[in-house]
């Protein structure tokens, strides 16, 4: 029984981690080594004498080439990464601010139809981007928002509002009401009590919510590739656009770029590990 348990653990962990390890190895290969038909997985300082050896010569050239512009793309990886950062940060700030305010209202004030509103908020998350993108596209054309950082950031703000509201509602509901009642007795107005007493108590929740909003904006692809196919292209849309590249796929650069792109997410995953379950179930399940 114990043996089976360790076997399952080892298998699961390898299945999850090996593709990522392979990504790291591929990123330090030359293109020839990346598409060699035989297995080569051991980095070495020099090119191996035997062409069929498991070794390959480690090189950092893929990382250097990230500043090149590939066929079928308009800018280098770095400029797309910058777009991802700008859009991710802007939309995270906005959706956390709006979502926290909304959750504060639903958590602390008696609002008519609270349950229906909250379910409406949640249901917006189920919309497939491709099914609502055409009206948004036509709207953005009129407003000149297509292919801009602002346009996509705005859309992600709305897209993440459901997540931010539900997560924050969960966190805020856990803060005892006695705190603000004491503040009200001390002569605070209701708004002051919420701002100065309840919000500071929700710091962890706000940080966790921000991380999940950022990750969700960072990874989004459907809206990114349909609305921003020519300007302010984020990394997922840029990478997927390399598919079917006439010069052949620049695999080492893709591995290098993908690694740089997902590394921050791995770090964030570690930081919010205690709240992962809550984050991916919209705060409906608490650990």
């Amino acid at each position, binding site marked *: 029984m114990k043996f089976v*348990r*360790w076997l*399952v653990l080892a298998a*699961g962990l390898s*299945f*999850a*981690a090996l*593709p*990522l390890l*392979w990504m790291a190895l*591929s990123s330090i290969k030359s293109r020839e080594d*990346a*598409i*060699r*038909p035989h297995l080569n997985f051991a980095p070495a300082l020099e090119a191996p004498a035997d062409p069929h050896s498991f070794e390959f010569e480690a090189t950092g050239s893929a990382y250097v080439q990230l500043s090149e512009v590939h066929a079928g793309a308009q800018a280098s990886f770095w400029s797309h990464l910058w777009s991802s950062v700008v859009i991710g940060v802007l939309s995270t700030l906005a959706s956390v601010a709006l979502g926290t*305010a*909304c959750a504060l*209202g*639903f958590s602390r*004030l008696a*609002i008519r139809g609270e349950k229906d509103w909250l*379910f*409406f*908020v*949640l*249901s917006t998350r*189920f*919309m*497939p981007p*491709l*099914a*609502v*993108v*055409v*009206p948004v596209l036509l709207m953005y054309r009129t407003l000149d928002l297509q292919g801009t950082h602002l346009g996509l950031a705005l*859309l992600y*703000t*709305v897209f993440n509002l*459901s997540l931010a509201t539900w997560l924050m509602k969960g966190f805020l509901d856990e803060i005892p009401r006695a705190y603000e009642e004491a503040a009200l007795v001390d002569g605070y107005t209701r708004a002051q009590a919420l701002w100065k007493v309840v919000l500071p108590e929700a710091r962890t929740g706000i940080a966790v919510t921000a991380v999940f909003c950022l*990750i969700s904006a960072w*990874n989004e*692809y*459907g809206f990114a*590739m*349909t609305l921003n196919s020519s300007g302010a292209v984020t990394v*997922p*849309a840029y*990478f*997927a656009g390399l*598919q079917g590249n006439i010069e052949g796929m620049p695999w080492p650069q*893709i*591995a290098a770029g*993908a690694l740089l792109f*997902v590394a921050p997410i791995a770090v964030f*995953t*570690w930081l919010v590990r205690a709240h*992962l379950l809550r984050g*991916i*179930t919209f705060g*409906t399940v608490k650990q």
Partner: protein
Amino acid sequence: MSERGSRGLKLGLVAPALLLLVVFNVFPLVYNVVLSFTNAELVGDGSRFVGTANYARVFSDPLYSGALRRTALFVFCAGGLELALGFAFALALKREFRGKALVLTLALVPMMLSPAVMGLYWGLILNGNYGVLNQVLGELGLAQPQWLTDRSLKFWSILLVDVWMWTPFMALVSLAGLSSIPPQIYEAAEIDRASAWTVFRRITLPLVAPLLGLAALLRATDALKQFDLVMATTGPNDAATQTLSTLLYQVVFRDGKVGLGSAYACVVLVVVIALATVFTRYLDRLKGAQVPR
């Protein structure tokens, strides 16, 4: 405090978010319905009303029924496989051991990553000629199929990537369900000399089932939207892997047929809204009952 001031505070807090959600969700929905009765195109204006012609085309189109069947199969297989594997992993992870937090977090990383980027990168692993999977299979003396170009395999290869990404999600939810079962129940079962299988079937499974149901529904609504992985591996116009979302993309953005695409979108939305309703009802019922904490 005056009633008026409290009302202002309520509005100030919830109105901005709700207003944005209404503008960006209800408006596209209504506009979609309007567009679906026209022959609007992506470039050039001057569309006219065509009645239900688009809907007639949608329901007689073999592409649509194919994409619908493929999406349903995907939702079913992805949900089932991920649930089974995730639950097995959670069972193995239940007991405490040193480094458990590290193992768990490492195993969970895939679900946090970008499906589009990882889908593209999996193309390197699964490549038929120089992919590492086939290289390993070759070293073991096994067959080396063309994972992403063989017509009968492509779909399952994409499913494999999806299983890689989302099994961690099911594992995490299962683990939460398992750890919420009070140990006294197991102790009582031990006194009664219940067999391991009986304990599993009579205690473990029924107690985690509500939570697994929630996870499966959440995963199904997500898999129904399947777009990123297909786009990054085989593209939007591959007959063997086309899902509802990629078919929509093909119709609207490659063929430029906005009117027809909107009719597709409306049909898809009906399915999504139905599933979302099931989900919220389920959630409501769970909240009324005991939600494991």
